[in-house]
């Protein structure tokens, strides 16, 4: 192994990447109008969190973090299935995916 590779990537890099991913997700969620994009932003947030989980699990040699990540991925998969189904249903009913126009519940 070359010395270049033997040197570990510092913890803070991973965390910064994780925070950046999460912030991008939040920003996308707040800004984007398309429902599918909003949905993807949520996935992005989840993965940002996953990354920090894995990072800490590796850092502290604790397997709990990895297990959490599995849970999150599982829930995210289920959520993706349900969410995409809802999106398809909404599109069929309203012929639009603009978030601001799906406001039937608004007073």
């Amino acid at each position, binding site marked *: 192994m070359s010395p270049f590779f033997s040197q570990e990537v510092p913890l803070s890099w991973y965390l910064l990447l994780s925070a950046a991913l999460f912030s991008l997700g*939040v920003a996308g*969620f*707040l800004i984007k109008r398309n429902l599918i994009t909003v949905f993807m932003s949520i996935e992005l947030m989840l993965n940002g969190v996953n990354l920090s989980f894995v990072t800490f699990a590796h850092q502290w040699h604790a397997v709990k973090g990895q297990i959490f990540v599995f849970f999150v991925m599982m829930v995210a998969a289920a959520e993706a299935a349900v969410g995409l189904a809802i999106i398809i249903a909404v599109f069929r009913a309203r012929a639009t995916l603009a*978030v*601001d126009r799906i*406001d039937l*519940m*608004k*007073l």
Partner: protein
Amino acid sequence: MNGYLHLWLIPLLPFAGFLINGILGRRLPKWIVTTVALMAPLGSFLLVLLNALLAFTPKEFRYWNGPGPLPLMLSTIPWVETFGNWINTGILHVNFSFVLDQLSLVMLLVITGVGFLIHIYSVGYMSNDEGYARYFSYLNLFLFFMTVLVLAGNALLMFVGWEGVGLASYLLIGFYFEKKSAADAGKKAFIVNRIGDFGFLIGMFLLVSNFGTLTFSEIATKLGQDPGWNGGVVTVIALCLMLGAAGKSAQLPLYIWLPDAMEGPTPVSALIHAATMVTAGVYMVARTHVLFDHSPFALGVVAIVGAATAIFAATIALVQNDIKRVLAYSTISQLGYMFLACGVAAYSAAIFHLVTHAFFKALLFLAAGSVIHGMGGEQDLRKMGGLWKKLPVTFAVTTVGVLAIAGIYPFAGFFSKDAILYAVFLQETNGKILYSVGLLTALLTSFYMFRLWYLAFMGESRSPEVHPHESPWSMRGPLVILALLSICGGWIGIECFGAFLAPSVGSRFAEAGGWHIQIPYLPFAISLEFMLSVAAVLVALEGGLLADKFYRRKPSRPAQWAAALPTSYKLLVNKYFVDEVYGAIVVKPLLGISKFFLEWVVDVGILGGVAWLLAGIATFAGAILQRWQSGNIRSYAAWLAAGAAVVLMFILIPWTTFWPASMALIWKAVRH
């Protein structure tokens, strides 16, 4: 628990009946409602009867192998059963305790026995009523509270029963609550009774502060130990209790609720407003008689109130045309007799009259109910007449009742009224005056009862379009039994009855008697009692003859008299305008204060103002906060993110070092 008699069963059986019929009555078939309603008082009555028989069974006839002392004998009376602690503080200890002694035994026999008969009667009387189950549940509730009242071993438990019978009375007076007059009468009874209860309560407070106990036996012991208890505070306590008794027993000046209470169903009038509940006041005075015995002044007040009520109500009864109102005023008058007896310390005579009165007045009310039932709801005496052919059984039993209340020998009323008048005559201070009032009342009583009898049953029918019919056997049966009791109820005699009650209420009649008067030219001495009896019977007959003259031989005479004495007649027909006077001096000012001060100032001004202010603040705040609820999902998400950011800031930034430093910086900047 220190006994084997299980006295708690006596009130609890009617209570169970109340719960079953009150909760499930509307869904149960009618025969189950009837069975439950009748079994409850029957069970209580049999229990009481069993206890009474037990008390009188001599030792050698008993088979008792159980542990402990022999249950209930005349020698172990008063029999006390305690079921637990109610109030246990430093100065006051009150138990749930029941006392069975001669007094409560007699009362229980009357209440459950007459109560059971009236329950049977009600089955026929109320059979077509919508609120059949409701009626019986209230009636059972009444019996529960009444037995608690009578059995209670201390004033507080008695007060529970006292208020409870008031509640049952209220519910039953207002039984036909769709009718405004009935609902109003119920409220009137309740409110007037509150005034009396106020006296009872004050009396209890004074008992606690002066004797430190509410248990009747302990009060008696403490009074007996110290001969210094005379007059003073005892008088005040006795007068307060007297006020309570006057409210419950419809004495002057609190009698006004009883005539209106006739709005209830007639069996209720018979049970509650003639035979049992209204006698609770007399019972209470007899129960607390030691207090009255130690205060001659209070006794005098009781006697005068009783005599005044007796003659006052009797005069009103002379001209009433509603059959139930005549009986209501007659009840007030007879209760006055009982108070008169209490006022001369002849408690056993009062209780004796209470018992016979329960028989014949329940009989008269039930017979009146039978008449009303037969006449299709007609209560006006002027529209009756000639009913003796149509309602033979009712006619026969009413005759018995009238003879009994008039005091004709040998009916029950004669013995008890005679006992009272005799005891009153013997009182030293103003006995002769009170006796004359009592005798005059007896004359009036006889007159108005025979008047009722003539108007309702004799002569020709004054409303020929009505075809009266005799009541079913469920109603005639109790009438016949009560008639027999009204005949025989007095035969036990006051000597025997008084001797039996003596351990509970003192032995007035053991000492009295033996007065003989030698009349010139007569070879033998006549006892005073005999002479007074003859006088009473003569007066009663005279009343009957007068009524005969007025209402049979010369039917035009009442109208002539009314025309000749317009003022008196108007006064009597309008019941001395007492309701109007109370309305003017009590109700109207109270309503005025309520209207202007309580309603406009307190309710609308203060309470309403505060409510409006709070509502205004809420509306204003809502109008501002409403803007947050935009319905825009992304703005919610933004707030969520901002909130999360703030929380993170609080967690991550080391405030403990950062905060004081920044504050110091700000402080510096401000100072310079």
